[in-house]
């Protein structure tokens, strides 16, 4: 893609515990405008740290990160976070606020008038396919896991961000819900023209949803590219990650007769 990257990491490093734990090690990665990038890796691979460096929930030790052309270090982190949507692992909803209160929080912080917030909340509930009247006033503990994550997505989109960061958003959901939510979000990504970075440990999910995939291990970026490009990689770990979806696809193909073939 020829357009300038919306998020660009250049030789970024981050260590914890006074240098003893290397979380991100000299990573360079560009995310183009409109792109859906999945970052795949096991636990401790540094993928979550990489994501949080972009909105300064974590500060980088080395290298530079630019968002929409600006070096993030020179931007007020509070304002930076308000213009980037963020979806948390298990929703991260505020338990004492209603669905409407949760969704409207960032516009409220930005000083949007209440009437506008209220209209925006309804619009977002439609977008994430939750019934306005039914869900507006509910508290998070009255929702199912999937509904909670839909509200989490709506909250991330509330202030009309160009960029959405997602930290294993569908990891804790049952397969059916997960599939439906993934598809719905992919749709939103396209219609709203978002630029999305999603963290996942599940290669299958990454292949099904993302345009491009970045593979991390031990803080290092091992490979990046489209699923097709990755399958050409000669890195053993990348090969191992791709083996599972491949085997699943083969077995499914063999076990499930095609429509009308029976």
């Amino acid at each position, binding site marked *: 893609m020829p357009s300038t990257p919306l998020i660009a990491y250049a030789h970024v490093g981050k260590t914890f515990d006074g240098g003893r734990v290397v979380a991100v090690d000299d990573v360079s990665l560009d995310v183009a405008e409109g792109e859906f990038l999945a970052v795949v890796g096991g636990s401790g691979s540094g993928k979550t740290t990489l994501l949080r460096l972009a909105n300064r929930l974590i500060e980088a030790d080395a290298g530079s990160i630019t968002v929409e052309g600006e070096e993030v270090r020179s931007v007020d982190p509070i304002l930076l976070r308000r213009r980037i949507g963020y979806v948390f692992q298990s929703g*991260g909803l505020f338990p004492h606020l209603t669905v409407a209160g949760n969704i409207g*929080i960032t516009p409220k912080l930005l000083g949007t008038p209440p009437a506008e917030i209220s209209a925006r909340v309804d619009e977002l509930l439609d977008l994430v396919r939750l019934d306005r009247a039914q869900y507006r006033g509910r508290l998070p503990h009255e929702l199912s896991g999937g509904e909670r994550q839909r509200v989490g997505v709506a909250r991330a989109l509330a202030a009309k961000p160009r960029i959405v960061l997602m930290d294993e958003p569908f990891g804790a959901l049952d397969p059916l819900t997960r599939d439906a939510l993934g598809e719905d979000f992919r749709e939103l990504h396209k219609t709203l023209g978002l630029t999305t970075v999603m963290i996942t440990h599940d290669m299958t999910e990454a292949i099904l949803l993302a345009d491009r995939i970045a593979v991390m291990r031990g803080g290092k970026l091992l490979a990046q590219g489209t699923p097709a490009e990755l399958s050409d990689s000669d890195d053993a770990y990348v090969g191992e990650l791709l083996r599972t979806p491949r085997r699943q696809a083969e077995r499914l193909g063999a076990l499930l007769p095609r429509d009308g073939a029976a």
Partner: protein
Amino acid sequence: MNFFADPRWGEALGHLPDYLGSHVRVSVTALALGLFVSLPLAILSRHRPVLRGALLGLASIVQTVPGLALLALFYPLLLALAALSLSWFGFSFSAFGFLPAVLALALYSMLPVLRNTITGLQGVDAAILEAAQGVGMTPRQSLFTVELPLALPVMMAGIRTAAVWVIGTATLSTPIGQTSLGNYIFAGLQTQNWVFVLFGCLAAAVLALLVDQLLALIESGLRNRSRLRAGLGGVGIAALVVATLAPAVVRPQTSYIIGAKTFTEQYVLSALMTQRLKAAGLSATTREGLGSNVIFEALAAGDIDVYVDYSGTLWANQFHRTDIRPRQELVAELKTMLAKQNITLLGELGFENAYALVIPKKRAEQLGIRTVADLAARAANMSIAGDYEFFSRPEWAALRRVYGLSFRTQRQMQPDFMYAAVASGEVDVIAGYTSDGLIAKYDLMVLDDVRRAIPPYDAIMLLAPKSADDEQLRKALTPLVGKIDIATMREANLRAAGNDAASSPDAVAQWLWEKVGKK
């Protein structure tokens, strides 16, 4: 007789506006001060483990100090501060009553508030805090819109605990001069007026429950975002405060304040002086149940106008004299010493209330004991009981030095229970008071202090420096000088020790005046 038909319930009820009002004022002020200090400290320390540890440690230590001691400690501390402030800045403040009580109670309220606020804030899920940051909240917005609302139930539980503690402990502020519901309890225990004791306990318990429920209402209102409930709770607390402020505003400010220590005779004498002032058309109120060391300082500072002390007590405790003088001589010298502090010794009432070693008459006869010297030979196998201060007083040291007294065991006891204890043989000897009516009632005998180890204890009326030239006050009280002999006082004390309406200090004081006023 029907228990509730006892006229002392009515008398107790009459004191309620004053006692309850003062109690609410001191409790609410202390709680407000405690919250005002603790809440910001707790919030400040949530990301500072060292400060948090130090705060909780300090608050825990304060909590281990018994309430009565904590209250009593603030009195000398403030007295020293007041003196310092006078010499440095040219103004002083009263270290008596309200201020030390508020400070001590505020300190007492801090632990539950600090601990629960810190625990509540720490209990907020880390993922929620991250989400607050992620949606773009400043630390301040995160605190007020997420952390405090989520910690609120735990915090309110702490505040409610603090409120109940403060209201309960405030009953102990009576001995440092703060009128409270404790006045019922202290006076009731001393004069064996169980109606008062019960009334005081009930009133304090009802007040504590009421405030606790109002706070619960505010809590549920805040939690459920119900302005109605939170508002109702707030209005309830405000109404309580306003209602108790009203009598304080109406009360005349110019009234004389008469002090009384913590035993029956003092309650009777303060009632007697109050009646005399009222008879002379002056307004007077009493501050009862004051600690022995607090009361003299309170007089010197002008916080009370007049009270009755005993010559030997001042001689030994206030002026640290160990030499013993004859009665008249000691009073005369005391008068000069007191005059140097601008305190007026108005005159002796006529009787002595000395410490004396007391044993049952029968036992004394069996053992052939008549004097303290006789007792000393047998003391090694005997037990002795005294009031809470006796064993740390110079008189006890003098008795031991002069007679070589050494008992097998010594116990501290509520003064009114000592006499029954010695009469029943539970202890062998008690350090009683010569003017106590119970000596006659239980057929006890005062042992002769043949070597004069204990100084004379003439009851004397003292006037505060500011009242030294007050002719009205002097005129009203002078008729009491020299009028009360030991037999009369013993009888009065015996009457006051009874457990019926005729034994209230007021009634006994009236009886006393009828008996001595005509002389």
